[in-house]
């Protein structure tokens, strides 16, 4: 077990880097958070990660709260606060600074090409997030069916996603998943 200070430093550096790489939002860096916390630093198992991600989704608020939960698991309360702050601060400073320049460059061709070029890469990363999370979560065919059904409902209907989460948790409480 490494000293706590080392873990806090690692959390701060990793999440600060991810903050500036998170084009397309937090879901695009889930694979990297997963790789760091499960494979590189071994703070938790694959299933722990899937459960924490689910907890972050089911809690109110923005969907990047997984950073707080990974920090909490790795290094307690201080870890949660440091991971969250590190994940917000760099991109916030960038946004604060660029907000002033934006009006001038709104329609410039390089900005449009930048957005259009980043979009498919972002989508590929979010698809990879879904793949890694499903691989960790879907231990039985029933759980895989829940994943598929939830995806179908979210793609084809306008139902609030919270209902899917609640239904899946309810099935689990009723004992459907062993």
């Amino acid at each position, binding site marked *: 077990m490494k000293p706590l200070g080392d873990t806090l430093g690692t959390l701060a550096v990793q999440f600060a880097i991810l903050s500036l790489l998170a084009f397309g939002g937090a879901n695009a860096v889930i694979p990297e958070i997963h790789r760091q916390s499960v494979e590189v630093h071994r703070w938790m198992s694959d299933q722990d990660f899937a459960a924490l991600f689910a907890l972050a989704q089911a809690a109110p608020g923005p969907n990047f709260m997984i950073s707080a*939960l990974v920090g909490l698991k790795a290094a307690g*309360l201080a870890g949660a606060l440091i991971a969250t702050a590190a994940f917000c601060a760099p991109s916030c400073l*960038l946004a604060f600074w660029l907000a002033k320049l934006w009006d001038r460059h709104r329609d410039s061709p390089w900005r449009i090409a930048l957005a259009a070029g980043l*979009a*498919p890469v972002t989508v*590929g*990363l979010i698809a990879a997030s879904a793949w890694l999370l*499903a691989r960790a979560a879907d231990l039985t065919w029933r759980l895989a069916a829940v994943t598929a059904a939830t995806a179908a409902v979210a793609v084809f209907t306008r139902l609030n996603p919270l209902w899917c989460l609640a239904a899946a948790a309810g099935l689990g409480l009723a004992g459907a998943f062993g």
Partner: protein
Amino acid sequence: MYIANRNCPSNESVELENRRARFHNRPMEMVGPSPAAVRPDARAVFLAFLTVGLSGFGGVLPFARRELVESRCWLSGEEFNETLSLCQSLPGPNIVNLSVVVGSRFAGAGGALGALAGLIGAPVIIVILLGALYGRFAAVGRLPGAMAGLGAAASGLVAATAIKMAAPLIARRPASAGLFMALAFAGVGLLVLPLPWVLFALAPLSVAVAWKLGA
């Protein structure tokens, strides 16, 4: 075209014009009603984003729109979309960027801090409490089953997000968008390569192709 909310001041009102001027960093016509009504200060921005942060589950963007555009009339629908598109082209959680940009335009650095604190303060506390409870009771009774179901559904929601985002890109330029999507997916999802490598290898190429095709 955005249809103005009935509760919001009409497009021609001096009050709204002043608020817009403030938002776009232009000089204001200083003839409006009380200045407090014209410019949201750091405290008002904090309270607005506090509401936003506590409203949504698994993503709060729709609630940000309702609060800023419909209930408080601080932005028109078009201004909201433009601000959101700026925030989506920057790294970091989109809603966090949005809070910083809106807060700073209305009330400077204090506004940016106020908006950020309002947005994430309460959710961070709640999620830490949930995480601590989970750590303590994870193995109790049927909770593992409930968490397993929750995890399976949550991964389905992420898959749905990817599918919904992919559809319009594939429709517009199937070959190049499909190629870069597949490469990013394979690099990070299948080969489990570090994200910085994949991003620095693919993003410049993808942007260059988009530039060449005229986006």
